[in-house]
């Protein structure tokens, strides 16, 4: 068994990390909801214009007019953070979408067809897997220039192997079990057969993987923006805010604390959600409580 | 009296898996505990050793050496386990540590209770492997469990259990996981060793012929309670309780007629 498969097995069999799963799910969902709400609200209203430079207000402390203070250009921290949440979610959604849209079909083909196609796809996946998201983004940024699109694409591509492998693994289990069904349904056509029979049974795995990939995508985007390879000015991005804040770390540490906290909270939200969903959607639980699919 | 069990109860949730079990084991006794799966026989054995899984409540008394084992602290229990009371489990493949050589695993018991050094314990382990009739004990002791057959693994377990010369050996379904052809050999080994060492034996099984060959006394357990007890021959030839009768009737004739231990 390949070592990565072993890791996945450990991960999938692991009892949830000691936290009561319902509470985890709730907390995660709440945090995610919070971010989404903030992002949506930011389209309609922010306390100040996040890009408005106002040098007389530079490096102001938290107060009545600027809730968390201002940065070195007098821009309101809260407004920047609110708009930054848009970037965070946007990159996450697109990256995960890319990963799923490319990875799941690849994994499905590998599982259904087996043989040399399976080998080739998995070997290619291993190669791509050797490029963690940030490395992939560095490569693409060097080649095609930095920016949000490059970042999203790079992160998305780097997660394709994970989804391919997870889809393949979960599909194999289903195909083995419902082999008779699949064989009979071959008259229907393999694609329809897969979508109608296999996909619903593996969807819970994909959802969980998706939320976790989302969390990792947020981290990757933040790192890239920090390095200057991600979202470019003037679009606010939490990662870039941290880069700028580092210069003023002795004068105003809060400039670095708040965006960092925002990142951590978002990532925490999605990973708690993923963990909670893993337990909630576990078919073993479902059989006990809700009845057969 | 070596071991006295008084009104033992093991409760899981609200269900009493072992419900008021009492029996005695005298020195030199060979007691069989018969029951089907779910009767509570394994839980009884684990309760004696203090090795029940978490989440179960135990009540009653288990008297050994003037102490109630159920109330003894972990340190004193550890001194008894492996040294005075030993246990052999059902699945030798999973019961042995897969990444440790079998000789080392046997030697470990000696090093815990007899403070032997590595070489002495290792040599003694080889000796023990000889006693349980493992051929080429010297090199076999350096093997890993997966390199041995099922029967050999069980012999290793027995060697481990008898290493310190315990007063009581509890054997929980020692032959159930083995091939039929191998079972007889293990039983003969147990029989011989128990007699040679003068160890008392509590043999737990659902397999009546096994009890017939080794045990002098037997208890029949059903749904957490003991429904019948007595000398093996009496049990087999004149079963009183309807459940016992059903068990006996389920045995093939040729086994029944082979006779009992005493």
């Amino acid at each position: 068994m390949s070592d990565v498969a072993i890791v996945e097995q450990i991960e999938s069999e692991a009892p949830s990390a000691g936290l009561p799963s319902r509470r985890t799910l709730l907390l995660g969902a709440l945090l995610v909801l919070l971010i989404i709400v903030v992002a949506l609200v930011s389209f309609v209203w922010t306390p100040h214009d996040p890009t408005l430079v106002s040098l007389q207000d530079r490096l102001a402390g938290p107060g009545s007019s600027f809730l968390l203070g201002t940065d070195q250009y007098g821009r309101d921290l809260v407004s920047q953070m609110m708009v930054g949440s848009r970037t965070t979610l946007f990159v996450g959604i697109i990256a995960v979408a890319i990963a799923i849209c490319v990875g799941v079909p690849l994994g499905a083909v590998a599982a259904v067809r087996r043989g040399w196609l399976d080998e080739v796809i998995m070997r290619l996946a291993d190669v791509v897997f050797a490029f963690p998201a940030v490395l992939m983004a560095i490569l693409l940024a060097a080649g095609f220039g930095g920016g949000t699109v490059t970042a999203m694409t790079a992160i998305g591509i780097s997660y394709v192997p994970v989804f391919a492998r997870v889809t393949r693994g979960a599909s194999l289990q289903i195909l083995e079990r419902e082999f008779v069904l699949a064989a009979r349904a071959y008259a229907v056509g393999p694609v329809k057969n897969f979508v109608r029979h296999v996909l619903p049974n593996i969807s819970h795995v994909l959802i969980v993987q998706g939320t976790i990939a989302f969390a990792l995508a947020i981290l990757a985007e933040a790192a890239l923006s920090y390095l200057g390879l991600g979202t470019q000015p003037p679009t606010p991005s939490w990662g870039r805010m941290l880069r700028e804040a580092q210069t003023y770390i002795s004068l105003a540490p809060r400039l670095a604390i708040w965006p960092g906290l925002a990142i951590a909270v978002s990532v925490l939200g999605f990973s708690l959600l993923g963990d909670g969903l893993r337990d909630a959607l576990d078919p073993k639980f479902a059989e006990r409580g809700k009845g057969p699919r | 009296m070596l071991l006295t069990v008084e009104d033992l109860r093991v409760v899981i949730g609200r269900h009493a898996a072992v419900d008021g079990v009492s029996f005695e084991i005298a020195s030199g006794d060979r007691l069989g505990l018969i029951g089907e799966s779910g009767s509570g026989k394994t839980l009884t054995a684990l309760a004696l050793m203090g090795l029940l899984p978490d989440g179960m409540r135990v009540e009653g008394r288990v008297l050994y050496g003037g102490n109630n084992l159920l109330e003894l602290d972990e340190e004193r229990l550890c001194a008894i386990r492996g040294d005075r009371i030993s246990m052999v489990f059902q699945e030798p493949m999973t019961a042995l540590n897969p990444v440790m050589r079998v000789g080392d695993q046997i030697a470990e018991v000696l090093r815990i209770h007899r403070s032997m050094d590595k070489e002495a314990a290792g040599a003694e382990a080889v000796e023990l492997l000889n006693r349980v009739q493992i051929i080429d004990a010297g090199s076999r002791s350096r093997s890993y469990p997966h390199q041995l057959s099922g029967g050999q693994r069980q012999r290793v377990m027995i060697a481990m259990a008898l290493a310190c010369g315990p007063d009581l050996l509890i054997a929980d379904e020692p032959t159930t996981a083995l091939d039929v052809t191998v079972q007889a050999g293990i039983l003969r080994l147990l029989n011989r060793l128990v007699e040679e060492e003068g160890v008392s034996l509590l043999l737990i099984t659902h397999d009546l012929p096994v009890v017939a060959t080794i045990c002098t006394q037997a208890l029949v357990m059903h749904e957490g309670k003991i429904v019948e007890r007595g000398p093996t021959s009496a049990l087999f030839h004149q079963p009183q309780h309807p459940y016992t009768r059903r068990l006996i009737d389920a045995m093939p004739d040729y086994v029944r007629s082979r006779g009992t231990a005493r």
Partner: protein
Amino acid sequence: MALYVLRRLAIFVVSLFIASIFVFLVLSVLPGDPAQVILGLQATPESLSQLRRELGLDAPLWSQYLRWAGGMVRGDFGTSYISRVPIGPEITQRLLVTIPLALLGMTFALLIAVPAGVLAASRHRTKVDTFISAFTQTGIAIPAFWAGIMLIALFSVKLGWFPAGGFTSWQDAPLSAIRSLLLPAVSLALVQGAILTRYVRSTVVEITREDFIRTARAKGLTRSAALWRHGLRNASIPLVTVAGLQFAYLLVGAVVIENVFFLPGLGRMVLQAIGNRDLLAVQGIVIVLTGIVLAVNFLVDISYRFLDPRLRPSG
């Protein structure tokens, strides 16, 4: 066994080959022209084409690739168009910062993860377990580079115990060099430690349920002694695997962290190269990093076979 090693080695080589093609393609399919970048906008067409011929840029793509790959096999990473400095030696210099940083980070991570994971597993489902699990959840959510900035704020700016950045060379002042790596390594270790703690914990919990732990206790070992003496031995096998696989992420984390602490490693080099449009340098750096990741995966694969006696050939 030898066959298995050879097979994994072949996979490693092929993967590296495919990766190098991928890297080369990405960095050569873009609209920029290195000759233009070097000579500037005023350059004449003749000088441009002459420079292109010199740099071998007029050759077909596959030939350019072979030149680059062939050079790398011999250890020659080419000379940067921009800085006119050979890339290979520069990379080697920088590796001497990045690799120790990554290794130090992994060491600290394991020092955190093993005790924490075992503690959480042995106090399974108690408050201690929940507490530790909460910690790991937060640890995983924190960006390593943010942790670095926070550590700078606390330990460098406020307390002045550690330098906020920079690096003295290994030859000149080795102790000072280690001191410069400490905060960066801790930043990395906080995140990796959290990840590894979860693996340790779940592995140990699984093992606690195993039969041989019960046998160990039946022999007279206390619960914790049984776990340590028997459980850990079994747990270390998948743990080595996980740690090895995580090394890729740790390496990339080091690349990012170097930019927080201004360490002269590969991370800073690649960022500067991107800024200078020094694509040949980026090529070399990326393939080196990928090569290290693939090599570590290869070693982990082999070691797994070695560590687990069940997978070794008989004897």
